[in-house]
């Protein structure tokens, strides 16, 4: 098949195909989307692996992420510096994990990272309260928020340390068969 694209070398495209859940055409389309986020920053020619990172503020304006309550946490979890500046590899990674072909275990790992607001490898009560506030805004009173978070930890905490470790979270995910289809962003 003649490919006249000059954005990536063939080895690069092979590497992307082997290491993510996307095909060649989808990678090229993703590059197009990445480029239009910051046209003066992102080069069209990626053959020599330029070190370019698009800042958080531009990425969360994508239509797929714009209205998502967790957009900042999603982008931060996939960035190397933790501040939300994504290189193209991180960008592809993000949508690869959020695509429908990623397995449950991989999605659980990143879902845990997203809900872990203070990045201490545990989902503690404050993390749950922040999650709840993002999901319901002003609908619930502070007492109700408190009750819900306590109840959530009580249900899911297996090892009794009053916060959810990754094992607790994964245990809960296995009992939620909808998770695979809801933790999914189409691009």
């Amino acid at each position, binding site marked *: 098949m003649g490919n006249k694209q000059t954005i990536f070398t063939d080895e690069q495209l092979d590497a992307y195909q082997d290491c993510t859940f996307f095909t060649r055409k*989808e990678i090229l389309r993703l590059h197009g989307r990445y480029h239009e986020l910051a046209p003066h920053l992102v080069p069209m020619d990626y053959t020599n692996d330029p070190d370019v990172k698009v800042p958080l503020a531009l990425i969360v304006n994508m239509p797929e992420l*714009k209205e998502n309550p967790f957009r900042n946490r999603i982008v931060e979890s996939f960035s190397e510096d933790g501040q939300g500046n994504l290189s193209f590899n991180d960008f592809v990674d993000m949508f690869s994990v959020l695509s429908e072909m990623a397995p449950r275990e*991989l999605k659980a*790992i990143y879902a845990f990272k997203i809900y872990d607001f203070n990045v201490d490898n545990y989902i503690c009560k404050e993390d749950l309260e922040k999650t709840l506030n993002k999901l319901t805004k002003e609908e619930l009173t502070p007492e109700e928020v408190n009750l819900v978070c306590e109840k959530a930890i009580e249900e899911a905490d297996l090892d009794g340390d009053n916060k959810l470790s990754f094992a607790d979270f994964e245990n809960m995910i296995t009992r939620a068969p909808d998770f695979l289809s809801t933790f999914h962003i189409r691009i």
Partner: protein
Amino acid sequence: MRRMSVFPQHGRALGNLGLSANEIQQEVENKTSELVSDLVNLSARARFQAIRSLPMAFDERKRMRNRVNSVKHSKTIIPANCRQQVSRSFRRFRAGLASAHRYLTIWHDTLKDIGGRFGTSVLSYFLFLKWLLKFNLFSLIINFCFITIPQIVHAPNISSVTGFRGLELLTGVGHFNQTVLYYGGYNGEVIASKPVYNMQLAYFFTIAAYLVLCGVSLIYSMSRSFQKNFVLETGPVSGGAWRLLCSWDFSVVNEKAIQYNKNNLAVQLKESLSERLQEKDKMSLSDRIKHLSLNILAWLISLGLAVGCSAGIYFLGTDQELAFSFNHNPNDLTAEASTLLLPVVVSLINLIVPLLYSLISKMESYSNPRAKIYIIIVRNIVLKMSILGILCSYWLNIVPEKVSCWESFVGQSVYRLLIFDFIFCLFGIFYGEFLLNVIGTTCIQSLGVPEFDIARNVLDLIYAQTLAWIGIYFSPLLPVIQVLKLFIIFYLKKISLSMNCQPPKHSGRAAQIQTVFIALLFFPSFVGALSMVSFTVWSLKPSDECGPFQGLDTPFHTIFNWTASIQGPPETNWVWWIFENVLRSELFYYLISLIILVITYFLWQITQGRKQLIKILRQQIVNEGKDKAFLLNKMQNLQKQRRESVSYSPQDYDQTPHFNPNWMNTLPLDM
């Protein structure tokens, strides 16, 4: 499959244990080489899937993949560049196949849009529709290729009695009567082309093969869906935690829809909180009796309605003047139009009675909203299947004696039922959803925008598909109607959804309800259609004047004739032998049933054992947590003591653990 540590601060976590930088690096390197050797030992496909699923950043994954490839290549004896060329072209071919497969999926963008605006549970209705469309397309293609084309090309055309009038589209008789649309348009002669083509066998085997393939595909989907969505549900589920963390739909991108979902979540959380507070006071005895009697009353009314409707249809169908008068005079338009009465009544029942059911269910109260949905589904299925059952028994018992070409008659009845189901679906979209929306927003504000009722719509699809499966034997080109219908309904429902409806409020457990729908498509729907067709083929006498099986005792006798014909020549004798002594002997079936029962028992025991194992492992997780807390505590105490007791000297100030054997002497004396 061993996993690398999840968190990027891997080194830092180890550093907290007091190891040096070198030791940390050694540890990471060990883990990496273990992972690489694990990956190398997998098959190619599993290896690629495993590499893609590694929870590391992209660059590390690429490095891992290069290492695995180099190890893999060093083990083979083909020279280097040839190896790379071959493997690269192979991988590209596989990837090309995958992307081609994704091109073939129709409606990809439309489905993405629907999912983005209404969420996954509404999307599941459209995916179900697409799946049914695939069944019908497949049936259409094989029926057309194997049955219709030989008939059109080789066999003599049976000319129609009347010209084309518009009424045919609705009633299916008249001009369509003797065409290849129905069973009567085929005759069973052996076409004398180069390889002899036996139309009887072709008809029989095509329909049989299609039904068997459908059954296999349904069983496979059902078991996979069951395994994914039901099996892991042990222990208490539902409640705040999973609703909070696992059920947020990330695929919704529309602002209004997200606001709507947020409101829903808040309402559901408030409900579950108030339930928790109310759990304390149990219901009094009189309340429980009241609820129970209401439930029983509702069930009685529903079943009564179903029985009443079936009886009404039965009497309508057997009414002599209505049903059969047109048969005597094919040019009588009014008689033809009177055959439309039955489908209209059936479709009206299918439209109105489910609404009555949902009204009835409003007066009951259930502890569990899921139970409510299941009960509504059961009642609707009972209604629809009893109607279909009555119709089938009427078609199989009464019609063969009354009408000359009875299979075509049945085919025409099914055709009419399908067409009217489609017309009433259009009415439902227009009057039901559009008008309700207008009323709800302008006149009676309290009603609000109508919700998209997934259960009712899916059950309508299942009912139509049952009809299509029943009708395949009697009218081989019936899937054309079904395909056109599904296409049009997809687009109309999508438009109606965007303009008129809002997504359902209680959308939890969509995956489990999906499994229930697939199971319903298999159990009453497909099994019913299959048993009806099997009964027709096995024991009913085919009509004498038309159709491919004229003159035989039962259509199944074609198989006997065929096996008798191949009994002679020695090279096909083994087929006859297998047929006669294995497939026709009862002993064979007893043995098979016995073996299957034994295997089922073994598998059930294995499942029980695994449930025990899961319970034990869960307990182990709890214990590990307690151990970890205990050890962390002890280590913190030890470190505190070490810091208090040992004085720092410059050469000691590195990270290697410095175990002081005299630590006991350094404790304060008053401890």
